[in-house]
């Protein structure tokens, strides 16, 4: 059994790393949102759709 301070460290470590991952996930989401919103990008897609 680990002592309390070790457990606290594991917990703290988990908290820091998981928050960092969440932050990155949100960054990815934002990038995706930007990509979807980008009108120029959509125009290219529409053009491609028409060519099909």
């Amino acid at each position, binding site marked *: 059994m680990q002592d309390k301070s070790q457990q606290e460290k594991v*917990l703290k470590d988990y908290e820091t790393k998981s*928050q*960092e991952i969440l932050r*990155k996930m*949100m960054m*990815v*989401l934002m990038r*995706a949102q930007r*990509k979807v919103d980008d009108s120029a990008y959509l125009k290219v897609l529409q053009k491609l759709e028409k060519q099909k």
Partner: protein
Amino acid sequence: MPSPDAIDRQAPGPDKEDGVSKEKGQEASKPSPEKRFQGLKANVRAGAERVRTQFSQLRSKTPDAVLTPEADELEGLNRELTGIEKAAGFALGTEAVLVVDEPTELETGIDDQNDKDVTDQEIREDSVTANNDTSVAVEGEDSETGDARQEPTTEGPTPEQTDPASTGETKVDGEPAKTEESVQDQEKQDRVSEREVLEDDLIARFKEATGKEIDPAATYKYGILMELTKDADPSLLLEIFEPKYDALWTEKSVAHAIAINTIRQSLGKTTLDKEYVPTDAEKSMVVKLFDKFGFDLKDATNIFQAWTSYNNSELPPEENAEKRQNVVARNFWSMIDLKDRPECGQDGLKTLYDKYGIRNFARYDSSQLIDQLEGRVQTPPKVVVSATADWNGALSNAGYGGEDILGKGVTYVEAESTTDIARRLVKVSRDQGPIKEVLINAHGNSELMQFGRKNNQVLTTDQVEGSKGIPRLKDRGILDQKAGITLWSCDTGEKGGFAKVLAEATTAKVTAPDFKPKGIEKSGILKRVKFKDEQGKARAKTYQVRRRMTHKTREDKAVKAA
């Protein structure tokens, strides 16, 4: 959007001790670590789930291939999350067995020496390809592995996948025609070979110099290099890296290894021992590193001081030192990542620093800074002003927080003093017109907001009241007539406090929290800016001073009406 921002934005000051003692008082009634872990895990999972749901909604609006890189990246991050959950659960005894069925990229050697066992697992990976596929990363390196995952779609197949027979080349007179793709493949393969030679050479030199033993089965060279250089003396790193310095920068993960490992030792020592004076070799390496990004000694000093303003004395000294190193590691990584983008150009980072005062590159997504560099910003402008100094990492979400509140195309600036704020705002208004919204991201309390790391680099209520410039911001066309100001800063919205004084001086609408915010969001039908408190409840204080109608304006109105 969920916010991971759960760190106080309180300026260091005497009133802080109350908060600390209260926390200590609550310590006794804390639930067990296992229970807290379960609670934390549930919160994190809920956050990740919300991101995934929103992403699925986005994906349903576009053809599948458009968001494939982002989907891969999210999947990788999700795997990473599962990995750290498993490891933490195992360490706390809530999970009976730690099954590592895939590399869990928990850590890496850059920032957590306690995860050495995991680093070893990572190093024992069988091949570089396996690592690319499963996103094994060093903290701060994730974008790089993300890029690695995207490589096949953007730059053709990886060298391992390259097979001349399967590339579909057309043959003319028995000779295979060199298609553009095959030339690119060849160039890429050459680059990989050069890098491998370089890495092998460095590994051999470091093995000899440090005498460290590395598992003979390990083939992931970047991991080996990180492990070998982890605790190496900066003078030794300098001596070995220097002759190959320029060649190393062709590969950003190797560049990262140099950047991080050459400065972390020195930084760790200076954090733990106030008397420690960095050696000439340590100083020389930092200067050399910044030079690579186009910064001179003065710029390098300013930027490095902003990064090392992280100094959380509330944490145990070792943890504080480690987190301080992480801030530097993340910022170096962001600089490397930005520089690696063709849109950034040679002077991109320098322009961001000179024109907008950006020092903490890791606070923003690289694409946000690229948008800003290329002028894809809103007009009239919306600006996020962040303090350069951040003693506890609470300001690290300026990028996504700013975009969440002000929308896409935000102009980000950083300032270390009141004159710096004025200079930046004037510059933005000259280039893009009167500023419509300002979000100020800094530590503070009801009396002041702190921008630089020195005690006098603050903006106090007395300074605001006595300022001749602040009341003229609208008249001079720096702020829009209907400008709104949000203070993302602890306690500034308290009754009679900083927000009220600023509202009176500027006649702008000023929104601020009268508590220590744990997040920021737009909520309600009117989508007003609110701050999350510890219970997750969103609230804010808004101050707006309507100019009293003078005798003259009353007369003017009457004339107009007539």
